[in-house]
C-alpha cells in the first residue's frame, strides 16, 4: 500500500454538536483508515446518528472539523459526496415509485453511465430482480433493506456509511445482509463506517470500534482489544459494562431536541 492510499479517508477533529444547551456530540476525534470497517457503537442518544449526519454534511457542527478524502466536508461536500453513499432504515425512498424508477432517479443524481446495465448487475447481486417493478412502499422490511443497499451501492462508493443496517430484520435476512457487506467490502476495497446496536454484527464486520456515551467516545480499539481490556467474553458484555458505569447512558434522545 502506498503512503498516499494509507492516509485516512476520514479525519474527525474535536467535533462538537450542541442543540441549544444540550450537547449531542462533545469534542470527539477519530480517523478512519482506507479498507477498514469502523463501528460507532452506543446506546440511544449516544451521538452515533448525529456523528454520521455530520460526516455526510447533512448536519452542521457547532465546532470542529471533518475531512473526507482530504476535503473539508462542510465547505466542499459536493466534491466528495459522489464518492460516498449512505443507507439507513430510517430514511425512505419515494414509496409510490417502483424500485427500478427509484434506482434510475438516483443513478442520474450520481451521474452514472450505462444505467440499465448497472441496475441489472446490482439487482442480480442483491437479489431484488423479482420486485424491480413493484412500488417501493409495498416491499417487506427485508426487501426494503436490500433496495436501500442497492441505492447506496449504485455509485460504487469508496466510503459507505450505514446506520443500523440490519435493524428490524429477521435473523436470516440480517445474516444475509452482513455476509453481503463483508463480501462487497473485500471485493471493492471500500471503507465502511457503521452505527449499530447489534454487538454480534459489530464483532463480525468491524475491525475498529468506537464506543460512544453521552456524545463522547469513551472506548476505542478492535473487538479483541476491548474484550481483553474489560475482561469480558464478548463485545455485548463490554458494551453493557460501559453503559452501566455510573453516569452512563442516560437515555438521552437528541432526535427530540433536534426537532
Amino acid at each position, binding site marked *: 500500500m502506498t503512503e498516499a492510499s494509507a492516509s485516512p479517508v476520514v479525519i474527525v477533529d474535536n467535533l462538537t454538536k450542541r442543540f441549544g444547551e444540550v450537547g449531542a456530540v462533545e469534542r470527539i476525534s477519530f480517523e478512519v483508515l482506507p479498507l477498514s470497517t469502523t463501528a460507532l457503537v452506543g446506546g440511544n442518544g449516544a451521538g452515533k446518528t448525529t456523528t454520521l*449526519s455530520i460526516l455526510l454534511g*447533512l448536519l*452542521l457542527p457547532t465546532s470542529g472539523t471533518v475531512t473526507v478524502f482530504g476535503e473539508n466536508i462542510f465547505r466542499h461536500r459536493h466534491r466528495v459526496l459522489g464518492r460516498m453513499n449512505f443507507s439507513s432504515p430510517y430514511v*425512505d425512498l419515494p414509496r409510490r415509485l417502483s424500485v427500478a424508477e427509484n434506482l434510475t432517479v438516483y443513478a442520474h443524481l450520481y451521474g452514472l453511465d450505462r444505467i440499465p446495465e448497472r441496475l441489472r448487475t446490482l439487482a442480480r447481486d442483491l437479489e431484488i430482480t423479482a420486485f424491480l417493478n413493484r412500488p417501493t412502499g409495498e416491499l417487506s422490511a427485508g426487501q426494503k433493506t436490500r433496495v436501500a443497499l442497492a441505492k447506496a451501492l449504485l455509485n460504487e462508493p469508496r466510503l459507505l456509511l450505514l446506520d443500523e443496517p440490519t435493524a428490524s430484520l429477521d435473523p436470516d435476512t440480517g445474516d444475509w445482509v452482513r455476509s453481503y457487506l463483508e463480501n462487497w467490502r473485500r471485493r471493492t476495497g471500500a471503507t465502511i463506517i457503521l452505527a449499530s446496536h447489534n454487538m454480534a454484527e459489530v464483532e463480525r464486520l468491524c475491525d475498529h470500534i468506537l464506543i460512544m456515551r453521552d456524545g463522547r467516545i469513551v472506548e476505542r480499539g478492535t473487538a479483541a482489544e476491548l474484550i481483553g481490556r474489560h475482561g469480558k467474553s464478548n463485545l455485548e458484555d463490554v458494551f453493557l459494562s460501559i453503559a452501566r458505569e455510573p453516569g452512563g447512558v442516560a437515555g438521552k434522545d437528541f432526535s427530540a431536541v433536534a426537532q
Partner: protein
Amino acid sequence: MSGASDIIAAREMFSWRRVAALLLRHLYVLRRSWPRLLELAYWPTMQMMLWGFITTFFLDHSTWVAQASAVLISAVLLWDVLFRSNLGVALSFIEEIWSRNLGQLFVSPLRPCELVSSLLIMSFIRTTISVTPAAFLALPFFDVWVFQLGPPLIAFFANLLIMGWSVGLIVSAMVLRYGLGAESLCWLGIFLVGPISGIYYPIATLPGWLRPVAWALPSAHVFEGMRGVLFEQVFRVDLFAAAVALNLVYLALSWAFFLFMFHTAREKGLLLQQGE
C-alpha cells in the same frame, strides 16, 4: 484555468442532469397515477364552468361585463395559473417530505439550487397540464377563446407563474423549517393575496389604504393589464414592466429565503428527520 477545467467546475456548481433526475422522479409519480393527472385538470375546469355560467347570467344584467364577456373566464384561468404554480412548487417539495426522501437526496451530490430549479420546472409542467384543458373547453361551452388575448397572454402567464414560484418557495422553506405542520400554508398563502390582486375587479375598488399593498403584488399589475387588453384592446407596457420588476425581486428574495432555511435545517438536523 483551462477550458476543460472551467466546464468541470461549472458542472460541479450546477448539473442539469441532476435537475432532470428530480423531474423524472415527479413525472414517474404523475405517469403512474391517472387520478392525479385528472385532478390537476379537474379543478381549473370546474372553476371555469362555474364562472362561465355566472358570466352568462351577468351578460344580460351588467353592461360592464357585457363589454368584455371573456373577462371573468380569463380572470379565472389566470388566477388558476397563479394558484397552480404555487401548488406545483410546494406540493412537489412536500412530496419529498411525505416520502422521507430529503435525507437520501442530500447525501447525493444534489445541490439546493438544483432542487429549487427542478421544483420550478415541475411547477411549469403541472400548471400547464392544469389550465390547458379548461382554456380549450371555454370555447365550446361559452364561446370564449382565451387565446384571443394574443401575445399578452404569454406575458400574463409568465408573470403569474413566476409569482406562484415565489409563494411556493416561501411555503416550501417554511415546511422545511417547521415540518408538515406548516403544510396548510400551501393554500393559505396564495388565498391571502387573492382578494388584493384585483382578479375580478379593478384595484380602484379596494379601499385607498389597501391599494399600495395591492400594487406591490405582480398579480395586481397582471389582472389590471388583462382588463386593459379585454376592455380597451391596449397592452399596458408599464403594468407589464412593473410586474416583471416585482417578480424578479420576489423570486430572488424567496430563493434566498429557501436557501437560508435549508442552511437552518442543516444546523438543526432537520434533513434526516422531516416526514410523516
